[in-house]
């Protein structure tokens, strides 16, 4: 169960499609269906006017039949769409492909019945390929393109070699002076040109609006992020002094009262100190989160990461013993030397190990592994604890977010630990991932570069 960034309610689009959801695909298909109605009725109207009204010598029956088949297919498709809601993009796309093949076949039959190579309506293949490129991706577009080429070539050569019947268009001799031929050629030409322009404009408009929207959203997010950071910094600064002073005051009272104090008074004061220490911890965490630009060249030092990890684990062995946890540490030999900021690296390891202890089950195991992967180093902290629901796995790195399980397990915890870990990991040029199953445990994997360096902004 990898943690990736997407809305869990959104169906996953197959790699072959550029549509985010089945519904947005369906919306576009509806538009193409309207086109198909127009095309089928158009063909039948022209055939009726020319063949029956003007008594032109054309294959009225065959052409009408082809038009009717198209209408029938489109009706079936529409009925099916009204009946079923679009759910699966893959199914929708497969159906569209069937449609597209039928369209190409119908077009080829139409052309065969109306002059084949003589008929300028052959431009209509272009429109089909453009539609295909709007719906499909990569290889599939070329499959449609090659099918179009194959069908028309087969018809032209079939007619040329006499394998297929040739239905001569009622044009004689000089086509440039034949009004019907000139109009048909110009009509096809206009249609294809305008269609290309229209589709191109549509795509670019869509593209631009997406770009604009992304830029606007990005700006809003950045501003919000900055405002949040400023707010935290302000709150931290303002709240720190009174809390510190209150803590000093209560500690002083406890100290001065000494043994003469009633145990109940002492207990109350000790509780107050406990809560004030908790507040101090939150303030400290917030300060960590909102401080910026820590990664300066002069702060980078060479750190024995093996030592750092074992020290961080040793610091928390007492805490682990209280829940009878087994602590397994696996370190590589030779030890890993990192160029990093020591206290940031310490905080990363300490926070992850602390979480794996606090959210573990009684008698469980914490496993800390360090893996040398050449240019980078991988720290894996694994527990057998409460786990994190998949839909919460992105959120646990947000400030103050505590998962449902975490809140039920422990009232302590500021909800800032992982936010700090993520910030520090990113600051050092690393990545963090979580892999977790509710009730079975979580695995946090941090990858850090051997040498952290100041990022260019």
């Amino acid at each position: 169960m990898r943690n990736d960034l997407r809305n869990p309610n959104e169906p996953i689009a197959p790699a072959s499609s550029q549509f985010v959801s089945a519904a947005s695909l369906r919306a576009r298909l509806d538009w193409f269906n309207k086109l198909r109605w127009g095309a089928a009725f158009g063909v039948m109207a022209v055939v009726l006017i020319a063949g029956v009204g003007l008594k032109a010598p054309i294959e009225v029956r065959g052409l009408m039949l082809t038009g009717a088949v198209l209408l029938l297919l489109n009706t079936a498709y529409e009925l099916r769409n009204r009946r079923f809601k679009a759910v699966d993009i893959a199914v929708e796309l497969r159906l569209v492909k069937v449609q597209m093949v039928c369209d190409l076949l119908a077009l080829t039959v139409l052309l065969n019945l109306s002059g084949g190579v003589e008929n300028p309506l052959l431009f209509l293949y272009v429109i089909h390929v453009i539609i295909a490129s709007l719906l499909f991706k990569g290889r599939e577009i070329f499959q449609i393109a090659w099918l179009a080429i194959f069908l028309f070539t087969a018809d032209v050569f079939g007619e040329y070699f006499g394998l297929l019947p040739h239905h001569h268009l009622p044009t004689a001799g000089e086509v440039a002076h034949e009004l019907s031929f000139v109009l048909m050629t110009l009509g096809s030409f206009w249609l294809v040109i305008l269609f290309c322009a229209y589709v191109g404009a549509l795509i670019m408009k869509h593209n631009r609006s997406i770009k604009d929207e992304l830029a606007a959203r990005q700006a809003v997010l950045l501003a919000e992020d900055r405002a949040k950071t400023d707010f935290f910094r302000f709150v931290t600064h303002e709240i720190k002094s009174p809390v510190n002073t209150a803590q000093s005051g209560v500690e002083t009272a406890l100290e001065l009262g000494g043994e003469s104090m009633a145990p109940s008074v002492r207990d109350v004061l000790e509780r107050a100190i406990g809560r004030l220490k908790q507040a101090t911890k939150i303030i400290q965490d917030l300060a960590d989160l909102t401080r910026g630009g820590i990664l300066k060249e002069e702060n980078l030092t060479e750190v024995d990461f093996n030592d750092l990890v074992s020290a961080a684990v040793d610091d928390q062995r007492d805490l682990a013993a209280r829940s009878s946890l087994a602590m397994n540490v696996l370190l590589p030999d030779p030890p890993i030397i990192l160029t990093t900021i020591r206290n940031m690296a310490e905080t990363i390891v300490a926070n992850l190990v602390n979480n794996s202890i606090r959210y573990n089950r009684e008698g469980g195991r914490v496993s800390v592994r360090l893996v040398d992967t050449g240019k980078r180093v991988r720290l894996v902290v694994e527990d057998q604890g409460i786990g994190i629901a998949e839909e919460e796995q992105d959120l646990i790195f947000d400030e103050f977010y505590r998962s449902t399980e975490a809140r039920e397990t422990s009232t302590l915890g500021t909800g800032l630990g992982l936010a700090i870990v993520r910030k520090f990991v990113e600051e050092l040029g690393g990545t963090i991932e979580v892999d977790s199953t509710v009730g079975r445990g979580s695995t946090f994997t941090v990858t850090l570069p051997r040498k952290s360096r100041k990022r260019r902004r």
Partner: protein
Amino acid sequence: MAEKTILVIDDDIDLVEIIRVTLENQGFKVIDAQTGARGLAMAKEQDPDLILLDVMMGKVDEGFQVAYQLRSDDVTAETPILMLTAVTDQTGFDFDPARDKDFLPVNEFLEKPVSPRDLVDMIRKHLPTSV
């Protein structure tokens, strides 16, 4: 042993009173100032045995400015200065008075909140033994 005088320079009047109670209970005499300027004047007039100085008062570096001026004055040049800070969480770097002696003219940094016991221990450690 004569009563030692501690000058507390901090704009947090509540903290000053808390420190006063702690120190007077231990037999020190406490005088206080709420601004850097007032603190400097008092240091000159009364020549305290030790100065507790808050790092940030009105301005971010007021405490440092005061410390430099104390060091450059003949009366207080040798007076131990303990600096109360909450600055580590603001700037993100840790002070080390031993390492940074050249540009940090104070004897020790005490991170707030300081427990009364630590405060007293630290003051005793830095008080000149022979006066």
